């Protein structure tokens, strides 16, 4: 899952930066890529025995390597997810919902963004909501992932009509209307990518492929 995210972040660097150029300073892709390419570099050394340790190591690397706002936000999110994952070996829909929920909470704690502030939070909250519902409905993981990705994408698209209130985009105020938030789009694209990868992947156990 994280492996697929790494690939995607590196693949989409230019696209993410271009989104940021419209409402911010155009470095979002580069900032994310810096941390995630470090993940790839140090992949072999990352502890893979348990999910919590793995996610924590990822969070530390991201926090240290990603510049700008993305380092603390994404790093913190991974570390919060790590805590929630503890030493889990396999993840069900419910576990995943909890992980993502803790991640959003951490982001909101650090960045103080509410729903509607036009940030990545606007993609994450719907994804969490969708996962929680699907857990209650006992949907299979693949389907739940699909729904979560769709919800994130929808949330990200909805940021298009919002006025940015947080981060660098907030300086542009009304002028951000018409452009989606880069962080939210990234969340949507990454979740979508993870779902698609899983759909085609052989293994269905989550921790088999970190």
């Amino acid at each position, binding site marked *: 899952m994280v492996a697929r995210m790494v690939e995607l972040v590196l693949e989409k660097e*230019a696209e993410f*930066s*271009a989104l940021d*150029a419209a*409402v*911010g*300073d*155009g*470095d979002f*892709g*580069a*900032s994310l890529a*810096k941390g995630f390419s470090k993940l790839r570099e140090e992949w072999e050394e990352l502890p893979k025995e348990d999910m919590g340790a793995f996610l924590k190591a990822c969070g530390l690397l991201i*926090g*240290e*390597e*990603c*510049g*700008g*706002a*993305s*380092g*603390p*936000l994404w790093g913190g999110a991974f570390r919060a997810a790590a805590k929630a994952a503890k030493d889990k070996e396999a993840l069900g829909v419910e576990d995943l919902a909890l992980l993502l929920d803790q991640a959003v909470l951490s982001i909101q704690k*650090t*960045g103080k963004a509410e729903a509607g502030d036009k940030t990545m939070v606007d993609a994450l909250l719907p994804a969490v909501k969708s996962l929680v519902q699907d857990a209650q409905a006992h949907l299979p993981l693949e389907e739940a992932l699909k729904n979560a990705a769709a919800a994130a994408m929808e949330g990200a698209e909805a940021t298009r009509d919002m006025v940015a*209130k*947080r*981060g*660098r*985009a*907030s*300086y*542009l*105020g009304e*002028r951000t209307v018409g452009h989606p938030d880069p962080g939210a789009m990234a969340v949507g694209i990454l979740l979508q990518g993870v779902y698609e990868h899983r759909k085609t992947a052989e293994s269905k156990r989550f921790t088999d492929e970190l």
Partner: protein
Amino acid sequence: MKKIINKPEQVVLEMCQGMVKAYPDKLALDPKYRFITRKDPNPRKVSLVSGGGSGHEPAHAGYVGTGMLDAAVCGDVFASPSSTQVYKAILATRSEKGTLLIVKNYTGDCMNFDGAAEMAREDDDVDVESVYVNDDVAVKDSLYTAGRRGVAGTVFVHKIAGAAAELGWDLPAVKAVAEKAVSRVRSIGFALTSCTVPARGVPTFDIGEGDMEYGVGIHGEPGISREALAPADELASRAVAALLADLPFRKGDEVAVLVNGLGGTPLQELFILNNKASDLLAEAGIGIHKTFVGNHMTSLDMAGASITLLQLDGELKGLLDAPADTTAFRQA
């Protein structure tokens, strides 16, 4: 992209190296954590640590030296340094009087500097305080947003706090006077062209030959409005009016003025801007104590300028006039 660089990913490190090679008896670089410190830090004064994304040269490392900063932490272009970088800089310039962080009010910078401060306080018992510069009047201030950003006025905060620290003031006093400077400094800027972030290789925004972005920051983010490029006198009038109205500055006030170039604008044009700005201040009954004209807080190769006013009182005046010996700001 036309730049005198090697590879985009090497820009920051090579710039830092080129800088310490230019001033080897004044500056030292930690190449791993990319911060630049005074060659001989003084552990008996409050340490001042600033920095942020790169691309604002001479800010911030150009202000490291006697009477100003002790360390400047260099993030990637326009990206705050990580909290680890800031943390290492705090430790490297640790002083018995504590450390003041001068942070420009951006989401990324605040999160990373605050994270570093927490680590240094909790893990190493360093006495760390922070001030957040938010001088840009182009951005509406609000509790419900990220608030105003810090731009060229930061240089005045460095100078004021730096002078106080050099005089041996203690941490609360240095912090208080830095906050006073923050509360009295206002800036506004405009851009004639976009800058080009090396890693992206294309201008951050497109802009027509006859247009400008009014109310820009220092990261290539577009301003508050796209307008027809106005003559220098009109630009000065609008900027000065916006600044005066904001604090507000009043008749009889004394100010320091900074006419700042954004990187691609030559000094010639900054002086033309100052020609009018200075008349307007006189007309408004504002006394100009001192004027600085030049590239102090830039946005890569962006053509454009900003005007900053700092409202002075006796204390600030004394600190502003105190000697400083850095590579980008020097006065006897």
